[in-house]
């Protein structure tokens, strides 16, 4: 049978089937917006849609749907309606100028799924980027076609023009007249008027050529222009030429768009002599750099830096004024924008290529330290942090100064880690760096610094620790006092004795007093001994809790001193009037006797 599709009045059963199909289409589309494509719900809807649609096509060969603003129709009958313009499926097609959708026999589930994926993809794009007609046109679905007449495009272009004119305050034509600006008017009467006189032309050559062609002609053979003519008879492509073209096309497809764009930008930078344009191009490069970081493509920023460095090297000898902005670019590469982009990347996608990220950091060298520091602080994963520390080590810093500069209150974890690194060194330099932490707001960090300083056997460390004796936090002051060692600076002893003698000292807690006074004892200096002795032997007319406390501290101090004279004073103390003093001295002596270093008495210095 030779099929001649004729107008058929709609069969109500058919209309009903189409209604079901459109509803199934809309439901599947809705499901795909919520769930991923392989979700059971989507698969169920898709299966239902495919069955209905394919069954219909098996019987009828084709399904043609008319599209209005909010309605799908079949043979003039509405089969689906949705007037909520944001979600409406008919509107989704209608807004891009589609007037008809065709489904043909031969359609399979996979193609229906592809179609729905297109809808999903386009509906997620911003309005000015989405176009379902473009998407379907590029996809070239075999058995799903559409009709979107050019009138839509024409109206769009004319509307855009009118919009621009309005913005510019220019007069614009009414819509019915605007289309007439592209009307074609040709005076065809000229086609039949006049004569063309070619008597001036030399025709001999042409006539000879025609005779030659006739002579060369064979049945079914090719006519050729005589030799001497730059002719097209050589224009058939050889296999090699076809291969060349295919190879050009293949190479065009193989090159990565990122690489292509970078090469292009570098060339533009190389070519541009005007300073402001040069900077504008660099700004584009920087934006691109940040974009790639935001997408986690660290390889591309690596390439950017290499290329900019290369160009800078090249220009620095020939064109230093252009090399300078390139240098600035390389410095800015680790600026705020970059840091924010990287943080965002790691936040959105923890599975980012970490190897490439560290390669990128290494390429930046010292410049990347603040960035690495921020990243360390932002991501507490132990493995990741180890890698950051590995990066720090890879920089082969002569001392830890640059690292210490990274420490601040907003990076508590890193700051503590840096203190730990300094602690590993335990030398004068480390002590010097630890001084930085005196001014930190974060108590935990200061405490870590105090502990670290306490482990360094160096006068500098003690000097810094002495600074912590004035810390606002009592725990820190106590710890500092406990960690203090005496390295021969008697002025420190005298200063502390002065502090102890001040009235303000009385306000301190017992623990703190003890800690400070114990240091005096540990110093084992004569001046400290005399002070402690006098403190112990202090008496007054009236009992005083404060005086008692100080005397008890003195006992503790003498105990820490543990020299022969100190022990002697403590022995005398066991006979003092105040019972508490007597007890304290006795207990101190007992402790000293049972301590392993009891035999190691040193004479007072």
């Amino acid at each position, binding site marked *: *049978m*030779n*099929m*001649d599709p004729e107008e058929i009045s709609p069969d109500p059963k058919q209309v009903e089937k189409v209604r079901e199909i459109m509803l199934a289409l809309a439901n599947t589309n809705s499901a795909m917006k919520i769930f991923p494509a392989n979700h059971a719900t989507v698969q169920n809807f898709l299966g239902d849609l495919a069955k209905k649609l394919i069954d219909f096509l098996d019987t009828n060969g084709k399904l*043609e749907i008319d599209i209005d603003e909010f309605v799908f129709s079949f043979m003039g009958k509405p089969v689906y309606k949705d007037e909520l313009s944001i979600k409406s499926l008919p509107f989704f097609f209608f807004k891009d100028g589609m007037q*008809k959708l065709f489904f*043909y*026999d*031969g359609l*399979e589930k996979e193609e229906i799924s592809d179609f729905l994926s297109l809808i999903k993809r386009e509906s997620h794009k911003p309005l000015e980027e989405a*176009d379902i*007609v*473009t998407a379907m046109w*590029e996809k*070239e679905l*075999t058995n799903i*076609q559409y*009709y979107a007449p050019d009138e839509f*495009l*024409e109206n*769009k*272009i004319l509307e855009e*023009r009118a919009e*621009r004119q309005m913005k510019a305050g220019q007069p614009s034509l009414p819509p019915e007249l605007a289309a007439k600006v*592209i*009307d*074609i*008017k040709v005076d*065809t009467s000229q*086609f*039949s008027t006049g004569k*063309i006189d*070619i008597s001036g*032309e030399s*025709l001999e050559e*042409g*006539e000879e050529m*025609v005779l030659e062609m006739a002579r060369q002609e064979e049945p*079914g053979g090719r*006519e050729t222009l005589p030799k001497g003519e*730059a*002719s097209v*008879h050589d*224009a*058939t*492509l050889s296999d090699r030429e*076809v291969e060349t*073209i295919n190879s*050009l*096309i293949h190479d065009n497809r193989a090159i990565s*768009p990122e690489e292509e764009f970078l*090469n*292009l930008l570098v*060339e*533009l930078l*190389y*070519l541009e002599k005007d300073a402001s344009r040069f900077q504008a*191009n660099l700004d*584009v490069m920087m934006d691109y750099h940040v974009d790639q970081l935001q997408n986690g493509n660290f390889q591309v920023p690596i390439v950017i830096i290499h290329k900019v460095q290369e160009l800078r090297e*090249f220009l620095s000898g020939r064109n230093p004024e252009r090399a300078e902005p390139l240098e600035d670019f390389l410095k800015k590469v680790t600026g705020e924008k970059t840091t924010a982009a990287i943080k965002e990347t790691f936040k959105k996608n923890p599975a980012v290529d970490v190897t490439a990220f560290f390669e990128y950091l290494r390429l930046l060298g010292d410049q990347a330290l603040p960035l690495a520091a921020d990243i360390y602080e932002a991501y507490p994963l132990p493995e990741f942090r180890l890698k950051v520390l590995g990066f720090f080590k890879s920089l082969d810093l002569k001392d830890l100064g640059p690292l210490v500069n990274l420490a601040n209150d907003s990076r508590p974890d890193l700051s503590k880690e840096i203190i730990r690194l300094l602690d590993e060194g335990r030398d004068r330099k480390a002590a010097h760096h630890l001084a930085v932490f005196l001014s930190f707001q974060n108590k935990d960090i200061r405490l870590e610094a105090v502990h670290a300083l306490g482990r360094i056997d160096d006068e500098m460390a003690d000097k810094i620790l002495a600074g912590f004796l004035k810390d606002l936090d009592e725990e820190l002051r106590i710890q500092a006092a406990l960690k203090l060692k005496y390295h021969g600076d008697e002025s420190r002893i005298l200063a502390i004795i002065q502090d102890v003698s001040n009235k303000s000292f009385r306000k301190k807690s017992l623990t703190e007093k003890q800690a400070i006074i114990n240091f005096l004892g540990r110093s084992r200096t004569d001046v400290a001994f005399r002070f402690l002795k006098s403190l112990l032997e202090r008496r007054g007319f009236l009992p005083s809790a404060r005086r008692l406390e100080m005397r008890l501290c003195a006992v503790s101090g003498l105990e820490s001193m543990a020299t022969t004279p100190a022990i002697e004073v403590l022995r005398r103390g066991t006979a003092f009037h105040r019972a508490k003093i007597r007890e304290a001295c006795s207990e101190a002596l007992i402790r000293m006797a049972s301590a392993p270093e009891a035999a190691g008495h040193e004479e007072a210095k």
Partner: protein
Amino acid sequence: MNENAESTAGTKAPRNQKDLKAIQKTAVDLLIRLHIVLKISKLYEANNDILQEQAKQLFDGIEAVTIGEGEAGFKVRQGAIFFNGYRVKFVLSNYAIFKFVLGEFRKRGISAMSFLSGLTLEELIRFMILFAKREKKATTSFEEIAGEVREAGIDHVVLTKFHPDETFVSPEKNTSRLFFLSIFHLKEVFEKDRRDEKLKLNTTRRLMQSIFNHITDNESFVYGLTNIKNYDEYTLNHSVNVCMLSIALGRRLGLTRGELVDLGMAAFFHDLGKLETPIEILNKPSRLNDEEREIIELHPCQGAEKLIQLKEFKRLPLRAIHVALEHHFKEDDTGYPCYFKKETPNLFSKIVKVVDYFDAITTKRIYRKKVFTRAEALSLMLERSGTEFNPSILKVFVNMMGAYPIGTLVYLNTGEVGIVFDTNPDTQYLLRPKVKLITDTQGNKVDGEVVDLADKDPRTDKYLRTILKPLDPEKYGVKVSDYFLAQAQ
């Protein structure tokens, strides 16, 4: 013929890559066979040995498919050919065949031709002769051929008529409007760029699609429109011509649709940099001095920079920026600008280079003493193959335009003057295009018919008309573009 027989799509093989490749090969092979048999059937009778031999090969191919799938069918839909439900992709080497078969279907108002299991060789030959000799003479040609097939008792060939809505053959009017719309749109783009306003690239993309669709449906007429030259708005007109011809060339080369849209946009914007060139330099009637030359040679770089500075540049095809920068590069690595590191221009740049040059030298400009005819332009370009242009791309372009490109004014051996209106896709008839007669044999101007120079006098078996020489339309005051636009009225 069994009137109740229905053509089905046939069962599809599983769609893995290997199967798809095999289907593609079978489809192309059958298409080539069909093409050969159709052509021979126009010339010979059923008992001719050559026809018999070729028809047997076609028959064997069809039978191999029908054994497995029950039918072997070609369907035409929106400028594409499908075989048993799978799109047949054409490549450079089989483009002419593809175009020929599409044309044959369209002429007869047929959307599908299916061969069913049970077909015999004798039935096939009878059908092919009947089909080949029946060309569209009236609006009801499908009914005529369907009737003849029925009467001939050809039961195993099923023809399907084009549904009116499927006939997306764009009338010339639509194509012409599209041409001017493109100029309009580009003017708006330039205006918006001047004012630093946002561009609506979606519209530009849709325009490229539409151009592609029109090229698919009406390629010759599109070429004809590129004869339109607006001297006042040269850059705009030129950019649109370059866009259309680039898409046509890219299509011939085998680029995908997505690539063709990108190519079209690249060609559309390739001269954007000229917005920065002072108009006095662009329109200077005499030779440019060194300084002026330096200024004008900045336009590729300026164009590329303009594009990357666009707010929407991320949605612009990257290659558009390449083309803006590279369209004055030469194949021998000379030209301008001079790159720092990059070695070869982009493929799209090479394509646009060819088309840009062609359109430029065939356009009258105030500074140009000599305007080349299209045929002269192609000859000149062929001389520069390998130095200025990529040889392979140029060859395809030359092939595409034909020995006598559409729009060429020609003098015929009958004394008539005509304008080439269509090329002949068969390379055998490269020198015998279709020509619209614009004078009679005495040189009097007429609004004549379009004649096929491949037509022969059946009595003498000699060609009725042959081109003696191309003419310069400027010399004879012939505005070629008007004859094409007249079709659109």
